[in-house]
């Protein structure tokens, strides 16, 4: 359980976040949505302790401010927006860095082959020997996700649920991999872990999130289930855009929406 109570962040004398409160429960995927500059990434960075914050953040009922970096690393893994590396690491070496941090869970031979399994899960089986700098941006993003998955491979370890913090995890991915990565996050939550994800795509948030936090001007504008948050009024207030929230039109008019993907069929294709 992650409990955030009246969180505030000031950067360079400017108030970026103010009085943000919500909880993210294990077993659930919590999406953070909001327009550019609303403080989504700042919120995620604050609960990663990258920024000083006021208010309290509790991670599995322990005050985050009192946790050692190693304790925190055992209970949550963080996917950054983008990462460049100054040295020529192979893809496998990058993923393996997730193993040496925190506590993945598996031991022995299972631990040694964990990077390969993590790469397979993000549809990058066989990429281990490539240089990180020589693969595409979207592939790099998935390599980073594989590294993050390694860090908290077992969603629940010794009865403690573990969290994934994802900052725009699908921002540079094609549609197939957007759905796939969201499935990976969904799977982590279904297995008892927790996920907090900053998402730009409202449809993906509607499809995959159990709870949505909508931020506007650094404050919580709405918090609840997708049906509660994604309403015409809230969207208009939060995004300042007169959009209509729709439901799929009735047959027989054909239409294609990403929501139509069959998770099981997608998984089979990834192998």
């Amino acid at each position, binding site marked *: 359980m992650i409990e955030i109570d009246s969180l505030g962040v000031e950067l360079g004398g400017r108030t970026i976040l103010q009085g943000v409160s919500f909880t993210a429960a294990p077993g659930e995927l919590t999406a953070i949505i909001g327009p550019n500059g609303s403080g989504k990434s700042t919120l995620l*960075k604050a609960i990663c302790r990258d920024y000083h914050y006021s208010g309290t953040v509790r991670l599995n009922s322990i005050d985050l401010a009192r946790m050692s970096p190693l304790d925190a*690393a055992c209970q949550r893994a963080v996917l950054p927006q983008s990462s460049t590396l100054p*040295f*020529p690491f192979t893809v496998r*070496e990058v993923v393996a860095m997730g193993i040496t941090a925190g506590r993945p869970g598996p031991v022995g031979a299972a631990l040694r082959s964990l990077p390969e399994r993590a790469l397979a899960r993000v549809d990058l089986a066989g990429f*281990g020997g490539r240089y990180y700098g020589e693969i595409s941006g979207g592939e790099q993003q998935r390599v980073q996700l594989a590294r993050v998955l390694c860090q908290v491979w077992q969603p629940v370890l010794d009865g403690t649920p573990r969290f994934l913090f994802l900052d725009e995890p699908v921002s540079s991915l094609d549609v197939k991999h957007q759905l796939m990565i969201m499935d990976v996050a969904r799977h982590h939550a279904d297995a008892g872990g927790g996920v907090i994800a900053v998402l730009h795509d409202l449809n993906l948030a509607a499809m995959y999130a159990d709870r949505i936090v909508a931020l506007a001007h650094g404050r919580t504008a709405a918090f609840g289930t997708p049906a509660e948050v994604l309403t015409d009024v809230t969207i208009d207030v939060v995004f300042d855009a007169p959009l209509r929230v729709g439901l799929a039109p009735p047959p027989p008019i054909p239409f294609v929406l990403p929501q139509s993907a069959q998770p099981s069929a997608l998984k089979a294709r990834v192998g």
Partner: protein
Amino acid sequence: MVTSAMLASASAMPGGLAGDRSKLGRLTVISLAVALVAAMVLSMTTGASGASAWSVMASWFGHAPADEAQALRDQAVIYNIRLPRMILGVLIGAGLAVSGLLMQGLFRNPLADPGLVGVSSGSALGAVGIIVLGTTMFAPFTEALGIFALPIAAFGGGLVTTAILYRVATRGGQTAIATMLLAGIAIGALAGAISGVLVYIANDAQLRDLTFWGLGSLAGATWVKIVAAGPIIAIALIVACFLSKGLNALTLGEATAGHLGVPVQRFKIFTILAVAAATGASVAVSGGIGFVGIVVPHLLRLVIGPNHHYLLPATALLGATFLLMADAISRTIVAPAELPIGIVTAAFGGPFFLWILLRRRSAFAW
């Protein structure tokens, strides 16, 4: 040479999982350890005097020497000249190479090197300060620390320059490359200017000390120097052993290193202390030998990759071997005179480095 054979096999990753170079890393560390032992033997058995290390070793096992006086002379050469010189060479070679590696990891930049960004100049300023002002202005300091005054002053100079450099060039965990290089040049120039003033006001005896010190050589190796500088370099190397996980994590960025469980602030402080200690103590006793801290880590990164778990011990071993070989050449090529070792490291390191760059240019475009 061992290294060039390994370079050829760098693209093929032996055995196991694709992209996993840990076996190659282990193999390289073991090979380099063997190479270092060979270099140590070579360093003990060659020299201008022709003293035989083997006859000294034979005497340990009760073999009576044929010529008593010759044996005593040999013993004096081996124990008082070659052995301290060899030990100092190992420590300084490892210290300079590892401080280069640590700086490159800390700044997340393959161009960082204590010699290039002014840390060596800062250390040199500390050393020059002690030589020139040690009997006047800094008398209490030199009296209190004795033989440790010079290495500790050089350590202090290195520490201050590294700290200033880090403060100027790094904002929010990101190091601006251009700022780092420019700041390093500025700090180096300033330290050089102050050193120049000190040299200007030095008296004749001090000038003589400065000249001998500034040659950049292992020639003055004595047991006193080893006692004064050795422990500082050794501690820095031991501290460095515990930094490899943090250095790996830091390549992903400062924030991500923290997310991976590295106590980033403490890690940075220990890294800066280790760099300043190893560079400072090395400069204090050898006057600053260039090119080791940049060539050795680069070469090894091409062979075994940037995983510091293996890169760090390999860098220490190759740095020590490289300096011993350079010293052997500097002692023998114009015997009985000596070439300053800095000339040898630059003469061999420079072209070799250029050759690697030409051959493997793509490997540097990371």
